[in-house]
């Protein structure tokens, strides 16, 4: 048992910090507060320095298949509130293809992603609480799939050449790559202004070779995608909540009332301590989930536990931070407000706490 980071992981952490501190200064972040939140410059900087290949096998141009490394990237993107939404691309598409495809045409997308191109996913559907059972349908005739349905919260779909879509068919669940030009894409405005899209598929025809997994493994691949998405989103939440907690410590140690810094009031310091406890729990359940995913252990429950902690911590720490900052916390000239919006997205996307608790409870009681 070892909780320490490998030396290369501390290096990743430090060098990512360096880049992101420079790129995510308030002045830069402000540029994206009201418009399409996607920092091309930062993306190509990350690509040039090899960070988009974290968690990707060396043979595809990555730095090695270790999901803990990829977790560090998302933790840091969250910590610095980077104007980039890369889970669809780096996690859903690159990781799932790496794990399930042996087709050169699909695998070449991984290389393309590492170079800084966007190929995203479209998994979630409005009002469908069970992403493992997509309502989007594919009719299969011969070698041809005809896909119809509506997806939403697809990151950066407008920038994406290919979109990985989950569908149901008479062969069961399939993960299919679709040319984005064949779909109708419209921009959504989410609470944190993330670049999010609705993707309509109206009888989109694709070839069978667009299915990224071998026959019969569709559900397995989709479940893997959902799990790894949960874990990486939990890492994003970890970064967001780490930053909010450090803001609490810094602000309350400076702000004076009644001639003393408010951090010296026990009520204040204890609320901060509770944030620290939640943070420590989240860090550990994330670490367990990432490491077990690495080892191909059955870890749906670990992923659910991570996401449950992430949702709860995101909510609790966000409101503790706002409360302990007083009015400054809501002031858009200060930085906390961006984190509060990000926290809410981390909390709800790909399953809320309550939804995942239900899922976990189902797993626990059906494995008896």
């Amino acid at each position, binding site marked *: 048992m070892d909780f320490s980071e490998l030396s290369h992981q501390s290096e990743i952490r430090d060098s990512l910090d360096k880049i992101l501190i420079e790129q995510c200064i308030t002045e830069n972040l402000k540029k994206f507060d009201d418009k399409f939140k996607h920092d091309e410059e930062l993306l190509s900087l990350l690509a040039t320095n090899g960070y988009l290949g974290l968690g990707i096998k060396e043979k595809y141009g990555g730095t090695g298949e*270790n999901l803990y490394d990829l977790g560090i990237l998302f933790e840091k993107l969250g910590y610095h509130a980077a104007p980039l939404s890369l889970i669809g691309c780096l996690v859903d598409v690159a990781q799932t293809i790496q794990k399930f495809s042996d087709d050169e045409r699909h695998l070449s997308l991984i290389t393309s992603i590492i170079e800084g191109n966007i190929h995203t996913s479209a998994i979630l559907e409005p009002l469908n609480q069970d992403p493992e059972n997509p309502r989007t349908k594919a009719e299969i005739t011969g070698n041809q799939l005809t896909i119809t349905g509506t997806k939403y919260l697809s990151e950066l779909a407008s920038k994406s050449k290919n979109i990985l879509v989950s569908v149901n068919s008479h062969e069961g669940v399939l993960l299919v790559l679709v040319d984005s030009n064949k779909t109708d894409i419209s921009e959504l405005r989410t609470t944190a202004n993330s670049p999010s899209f609705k993707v309509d598929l109206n009888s989109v025809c694709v070839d069978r070779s667009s299915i990224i997994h071998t026959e019969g493994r569709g559900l397995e691949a989709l479940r893997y995608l959902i799990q790894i998405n949960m874990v990486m989103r939990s890492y994003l939440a970890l970064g967001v909540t780490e930053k909010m907690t450090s803001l609490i410590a810094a602000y309350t140690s400076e702000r004076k009332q009644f001639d003393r810094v408010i951090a010296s009031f026990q009520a204040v310091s204890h609320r901060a301590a509770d944030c620290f406890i939640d943070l420590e729990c989240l860090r550990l359940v994330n670490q367990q989930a990432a490491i077990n995913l690495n080892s191909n252990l059955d870890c749906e429950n670990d992923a659910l536990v991570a996401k449950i902690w992430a949702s709860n911590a995101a909510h609790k720490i966000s409101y503790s931070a706002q409360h302990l900052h007083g009015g400054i916390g809501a002031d858009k000239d200060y930085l906390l407000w961006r984190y509060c919006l990000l926290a809410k997205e981390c909390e709800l996307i790909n399953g809320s706490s309550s939804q995942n608790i239900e899922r976990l409870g189902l797993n626990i009681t059906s494995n008896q």
Partner: protein
Amino acid sequence: MRKQDEILVAEMLIQLNAKQAKLKSELQEYFEGLMTPALKAELNNPNHFEGGGPEFKNAMQTMGADGWIGLSWKKELGGKELSPMEQYIFVETVMRTGFPFPFLTTESVGPMIAENGSDWAKEEIATKILQGKLIFAIGYSEPNSGTDLASLKTKAIKEKDGYLINGQKMWTSLANFSDYIWLATRTDFEVKNHKGISIFIVPTDDQGFSMSAINTLGDVRTNATFYDNILVPDSYLVGKLNEGWSLITSQLNLERLALVNHGPVEELYNNVLNLAHQTKINKDQYLTDLSWVKHNLAQVYSGIEALKLICWKQTWIMESDQLNMAEASVAKVYGSEFFIEAYRLLMEIMGELSLLKNESELSILNAKLERMYRTASILTFGGGTNEVQRDIIAMAGLLMPRTR
């Protein structure tokens, strides 16, 4: 950036290694053998919840003879010098069986005496602790000294033949069947509180020793103990005069960690899960078919996962000789408060059945649920109250200023 495909991800695995897993199953097997029906029956008797009965004494001596006492002690002191992780596994396994193992005697007091005691204490006391023949009670708290322990007033005055001890202690658990009290006394009245404290070994068969029982909500007996002109020889002093505070604090992290070990709550969760799964609520439905039951189970499960990881990480920190004040306090606060929540959620699952006492008809799971909730609050203030732990977290973990 360095390439790292060659690094084995297995090294990062967060689970017991083969040697640790083997120790765990060895211990499991050993304790299954130790917990005879007679011992179990004795431990179900409220007078013997915490040990002290004849079967308990037998079991302790058997464990001593089989070499299962003194696992944390250094080899040169006659112990096995297990690593912190192996000790954690030991505590976990023992607690899962429900055997009231006297950890404070064997793992805190014992090694401190073996290391810092007089020649007499090393030979007479430490050896017998290793043999399972002696039990200690801890005499720290006093009526007016709890969280502010260093303000304690019980005094030991140097006389020609030793030290004369006078005072009163509170919450001296196990004193009713202990051979000695590990007693914190004031020996210097001129210096700052924590600098004038010394530790003595005080025999409970001295005529100046007396006690009165305090019966608690959880049916755990504890005691008020009185020390009236007890004269102990110099050799009963442990460590140096006036340097007792460091003995009190030296093993705090380890002791706190033992308090919030994840074993017992996981055991209780497993028991409730199994029972709920077999409990029919109508013709074709079991308790576990209800969505709110699933919900409660999942809440407890995700809480246990975090507790297990916090405890393992804290153990790993000790194993690698790092010092991290904040994390030990995180374990204590989170664990003690989670237990309360977990007991509640698990009791909800079994509903009113959880209210039935052990001797009652229809009672379930040896009425463990009925008993555990009554003992739960002790841990939020005992072992270092959670307010102080949160102060420590804010200072050591978040570098915030000291509160006042």
